[in-house]
């Protein structure tokens, strides 16, 4: 027994060094890249609202995205800068989450509690699965409306040689398929849960301790998540209802 206890203590002393990269740094990476994603999704949603202005409105917005800043910035310069930023953020976000997940598993040990309390714990538990789902939906979305392969609608029209983009036609063609409309609605719900919990965790990771700040933060997070869901998920629903055609 005494020998066992000594061995126990010695065993613990050997692992008592902080891991690299530190959990603190990884959590900050998650928080900062999370802000980038939420900002992107929010701005993307605002761009999507152009669909209510008709084909010309959405298509000219898509074209503007490719020409913004010209001639100071080359064609598609801003677009590619955003794409690279998002890709780097994605790699960092996913990479950090995998390391943190592994550290959490190791620290928990071999006994897992089966009971959990409340909706917060539920949202936290869904984060990893939610992240994987969002990534899967993202691949579908890019194939469907950006690249125009595989899951894209049969009537998909790539951009013309003169740079004319058929975003509206493609969107309506894609969302006219009920299963695809459903995929997008589910995607938005998953994103909403991910953002809601991510936003909460962000306040924790960035050290928000004040009562008022935390209350304002929570309200803001709920509003942003709601705006993203409503702004985006209404579009496939309205296409299905024939309002957008």
């Amino acid at each position, binding site marked *: 027994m005494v020998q*066992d206890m000594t061995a126990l203590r010695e065993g613990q002393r050997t692992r008592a060094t902080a891991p690299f990269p530190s959990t603190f740094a990884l959590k900050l990476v998650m928080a900062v890249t999370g802000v980038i994603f939420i900002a992107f999704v929010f701005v993307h949603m605002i761009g999507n609202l152009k669909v209510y202005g008709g084909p010309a409105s959405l298509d000219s917005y898509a074209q503007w995205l490719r020409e913004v800043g010209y001639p100071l910035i080359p064609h598609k310069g801003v677009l590619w800068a955003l794409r690279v930023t998002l890709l780097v953020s994605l790699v960092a976000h996913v990479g950090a989450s995998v390391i943190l997940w592994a550290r959490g598993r190791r620290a928990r040990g071999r006994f897992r509690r089966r009971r959990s309390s409340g909706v917060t714990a539920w949202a936290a538990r869904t984060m990893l699965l939610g992240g994987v789902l969002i990534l899967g939906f993202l691949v579908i979305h890019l194939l469907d409306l950006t690249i125009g392969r595989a899951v894209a609608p049969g009537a998909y029209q790539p951009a013309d040689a003169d740079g004319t983009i058929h975003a509206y036609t493609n969107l309506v063609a894609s969302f006219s398929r009920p299963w695809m409309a459903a995929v997008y609605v589910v995607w938005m719900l998953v994103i909403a849960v991910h953002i809601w919990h991510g936003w909460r965790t962000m306040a924790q990771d960035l050290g928000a301790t004040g009562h008022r700040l935390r209350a304002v933060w929570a309200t803001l997070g709920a509003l942003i998540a709601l705006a993203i869901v409503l702004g985006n998920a209404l579009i496939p629903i309205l296409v299905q209802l024939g309002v957008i055609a």
Partner: protein
Amino acid sequence: MRIELEVWRQDGPRERGRFEAHVVDDATPEMSLLELLDRLNDQLVEGGQEPIQFESDCREGACGACGVTVNDVPHGPVPRTPSCRQHLRSFGAVTRLRIEPLRSAAFPVVRDLVVDRTALDRLIRAGGHVDVMTGTAPDADAVLVTHDDAEVALDFAACIGCGACVAACPNGAAHLFAGAKLAHLALVPHGRLERGRRAVAVVDALEAEFGPCSTYGECVEVCPAGIPLTAVAAVHRERLRSVFRGRAD
């Protein structure tokens, strides 16, 4: 009252553990969880068996020595209450109890329900204390502390160090414990003098032996001292502050 128990038995840190079934026929509603274990141990001793090892000290919720997992919840079914203050009368219709040690990789089982929680002590040794010469007592009102600061500091100082937050956490994190200490000491005059150094030391020790926080919020549900989730944010606030400040205070 008849209580059916499944209790974790483990002969030593390196032995395999197992559940053992027992029945206590003469339990009473006013018994606490620990008194139920005492009663069971009397039974075991009378029958010539080894009693179940568990820790306890004050039995009034002040010391943090006790702590077992009951039906998968650290401390027991009554929220935010230490094991010693969990009474059978509050369990409702529950008469089958599965009692295990507090579970976490950082808390190896010593024997039966006793776990080694010195990982928490190592965290306190790393930075959860005041390490400056405080001299003689200052004159009254020479060092001013606002009433609000004192109240908040005391709220965070309420942590009894039982370790239930770690056992409740699906990531085995001790952020609630570490944050309570950091938030408390950052608000008091002597603690303030080494805020930066403390934040670095405590976070290093925290990361060496515990997991990351994913805001599950499970810790708050079991904390007998009622430490809020804000404590977790305090860990990062203090650590970030030390990054921007780059000084010991």
